[in-house]
């Protein structure tokens, strides 16, 4: 079953209040039930705007989308009752306690208030349930936002940078909760800068840049699309890098941890080894490595500029 489907979805902000730019440009993606879908892109690429349109807080200026197959305003409203979501930073009433904030959410979702104790327990806030939101640390706020998404046991969970601003321990907690949700079979739509975590957690990934879909596929498609050879040899590493660069089909040779990493396309290691031997270079280390999602991301989006929070 298709849970999210966008067709040519576009958003151009009005020149009067925004800068008139096209934030999302004819975006078409599809998320199936049970997928953990990573939605990646540099800062300002249109991720949050896209999610905002799906959640009904931003009006699209073009294209269409369906949630749980529904497209009309009434169907979308009904579909949104089956979604738990956070967008950017946690937004709650500062003068209300964690529990009271979740009461507001539970009423909106038509959920049993008994859910509140359970979700507070899952995110580790049970003992802080009476703490006012304004007195919470950022980590607690993020966890409360995650708790809010779980109220009513939604089928689709949309998370936009759920670990923003958290220390490594906090990030790990969030990651564990997401994995727990994924293990329960929830469909998860995750926008994150934590590429290592996305690689480990997600089943599918879409990369957008300047509002346009650049590539979409399974995580395996991204990570095994290119084979990376790691080459080590005695002698000057720069001489090795230059020699490797001249190998036919070699691309993006770079030095990393005293080795040269290079994409070798369809060629095998034995051909590369023969090529180097022909140049009088005898490899002391030669192995194949899968391209990481981060490598794929950098390759697709060009430069790491504007993506300053790679974890």
């Amino acid at each position, binding site marked *: 079953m298709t849970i999210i489907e966008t067709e040519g979805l576009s958003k151009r902000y009005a020149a009067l209040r925004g800068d008139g730019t096209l934030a999302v440009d004819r975006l078409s993606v599809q998320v199936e039930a049970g997928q953990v879908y990573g939605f990646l892109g540099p800062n300002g690429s249109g991720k949050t705007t896209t999610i*905002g349109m799906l*959640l*009904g*807080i*931003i*009006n699209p200026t073009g294209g269409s989308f369906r949630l749980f197959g529904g497209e009309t*305003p009434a169907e979308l*409203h009904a579909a*949104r*009752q089956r*979604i738990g*979501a*956070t*967008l950017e*930073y946690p*937004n*709650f*009433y*500062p*003068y*209300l306690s964690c529990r*009271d904030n979740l*009461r*507001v*959410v539970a*009423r*909106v*979702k*038509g959920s049993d208030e008994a859910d509140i104790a359970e979700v507070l327990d899952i995110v580790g806030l049970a003992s802080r349930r009476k703490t006012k939101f304004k007195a919470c640390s950022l980590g607690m706020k993020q966890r409360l936002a995650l708790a*809010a998404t779980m109220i009513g046991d939604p089928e689709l969970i949309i998370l936009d940078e759920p670990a923003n601003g958290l220390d490594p321990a906090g990030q790990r907690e969030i990651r564990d909760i997401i994995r727990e949700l994924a293990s329960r079979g929830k469909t998860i739509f995750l926008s994150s800068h934590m590429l290592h975590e996305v690689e480990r957690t997600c089943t599918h990934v879409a990369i957008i840049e300047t509002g346009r879909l650049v590539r979409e596929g399974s995580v395996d498609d991204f990570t095994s699309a290119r084979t990376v050879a790691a080459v080590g040899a005695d002698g000057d590493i720069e001489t090795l890098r230059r020699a490797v660069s001249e190998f036919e089909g070699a691309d993006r040779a770079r030095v990393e941890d005293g080795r040269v990493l290079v994409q070798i396309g369809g060629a095998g290691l034995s051909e590369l080894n023969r090529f180097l031997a022909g140049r009088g270079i005898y490899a002391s280390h030669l192995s194949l490595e899968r391209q990481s999602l981060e490598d794929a991301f950098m390759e697709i989006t060009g430069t790491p500029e504007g993506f300053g929070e790679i974890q």
Partner: protein
Amino acid sequence: MRGARAFGVLLRNEWFKARKRLAFWIALGFYAFFTVMNHGQPFLERSEGFRLPDVWPAVFGDESTMVVIFAALSLVLLSATEFGWRTARQNVIDGLSKSQWFWGKSLLLPVVGIAFIGVHVSIPTVLALMRTDFGAAAGPLVPLSVFQAAGGLGLAFLSVGALAFLLSLVIRRTGAALAVWFLWVGPIESGMLPALVRRFLPDFTGWLGYLPFTNAFPLLEFRSYDAAAYERYAAAVDAAGRTPPAAVDPAWHLVTAAAWTVLFVGIAFILFRRRDL
């Protein structure tokens, strides 16, 4: 979530958020204190007119302007902050439609109005009750005109409060919305606009009485609803050597107040639906 159930949830949520908000209780408490102070002197001095049913012109009079101002201030406080905290967008993310959020928030108009008008009426009523000689009272202690005056006060607040509500949703900042609202009800509607109309459109001077805040004034006066109260007032003014103003028929002002309320809330709804959160 639809129909009566949606209405119930929205009302419960708005009241839950309001009653947990210290600023709301401070504003209401301050107004209660103001009301006690306002009626404290005649109460302590056992003034002749401070008993039922003579007290009503003191309850529904010039001081009623203050209840409108306090209630409108609280309304802005409870509405505009939803944008600063981004909880309006979160409520929609959590499952309310934008229309539901709007109508839920608009319920604050009657809720806040009832709370403040309740304080405004109940405090002097209780104080006057303590000074009432039930055996000596001629006629009903709470005549029908009291309910008419309370309704008129409520409608007056709705019309002026709806403007504050509109500004809260359009400007989305508490301070700025309040500033613009005060600017309108003060210098603009009471000063600049009448001056401009008298100067450039003298034929339309009569219409000035139907501007939102100006239109509310006749609705605040008990004598607009009670002929006997008007007679007593006119006699007192006459005795002071001045010409009493003509009696006001509140009907057109009530209709105008209702029209302003519908207009302001309608504009707020259209603009809110069109804008992103």
